[in-house]
């Protein structure tokens, strides 16, 4: 008779469910954050088409503009935009984690590191918009 349970195998392992990321709000937020990259990539592709159209001359470009006005495309861009914003916000908020900046022996508070990110974001966005709209 085997009197003792032999270790290893050391215990009962619960298999992680395929849907583990639904288990906690934080996990869901994490997965959404990761998935935002798909929308980033999708918009890059859209931009590549735009460049192609731009290079193809005015009529090719207006075909492309027509395509962008398609309600399906607009709807998908609305969703993409929300995800991209989500990416931007999470990205800026997490940056203080990676950078432990110290001044005068004290760690600079996270808000002070994240803050400039937002300022830069607004300025750069305004600059880009100005360049494009100027014409």
């Amino acid at each position, binding site marked *: 008779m085997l009197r003792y349970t032999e270790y290893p195998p050391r215990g009962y392992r619960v298999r992680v469910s395929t849907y583990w990321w639904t288990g906690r709000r934080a996990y869901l937020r994490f997965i959404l954050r990761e998935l935002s990259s798909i929308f980033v*990539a999708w918009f890059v592709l859209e931009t590549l088409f735009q460049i192609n159209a731009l290079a193809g001359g005015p009529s090719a*470009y207006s075909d492309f503009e027509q395509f962008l006005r398609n309600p399906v495309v*607009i709807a998908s861009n609305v969703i993409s*935009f929300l995800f*991209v914003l989500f990416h931007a916000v999470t*990205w800026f908020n997490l940056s203080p984690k990676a950078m432990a900046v110290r001044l005068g022996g004290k760690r600079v508070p996270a808000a002070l590191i994240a803050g400039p990110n937002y300022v830069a974001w607004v300025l750069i966005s305004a600059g880009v*918009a100005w360049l494009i*709209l100027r014409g």
Partner: protein
Amino acid sequence: MAAKRSNEPFLWLLFSAGGVVAALLVPVHLFLFGLAFPLGWLPAPAHDTLLALARSPIGRIYLLVFCVLPLFHWAHRFRYTLYDGLQIKHLNELVNTLCYGGATVGAAFAVYLIWRIP
């Protein structure tokens, strides 16, 4: 020795740089071209204005950065999402090829298109 170390730092740097571009630049582009212009909230710029911007040397570099880095950002995140979300870490080679390979093809395509701008 450096050679022994993995290429993870390189991929991570690309990912991070891509993340920064995606956070700083993509939203405004997406808002303007994807929403504001098609919906008529703002007057869309004419073809030749845009072309002028895009064909300048700085414009070309800008577009290159704008397209290439976020693709690698995507590749990195998507790789881990596939690992963790679908639990297919054992298919690691395949996943890597798909993600980084995809990003590389996309990047090459971008170089070609941007180079071709008249």
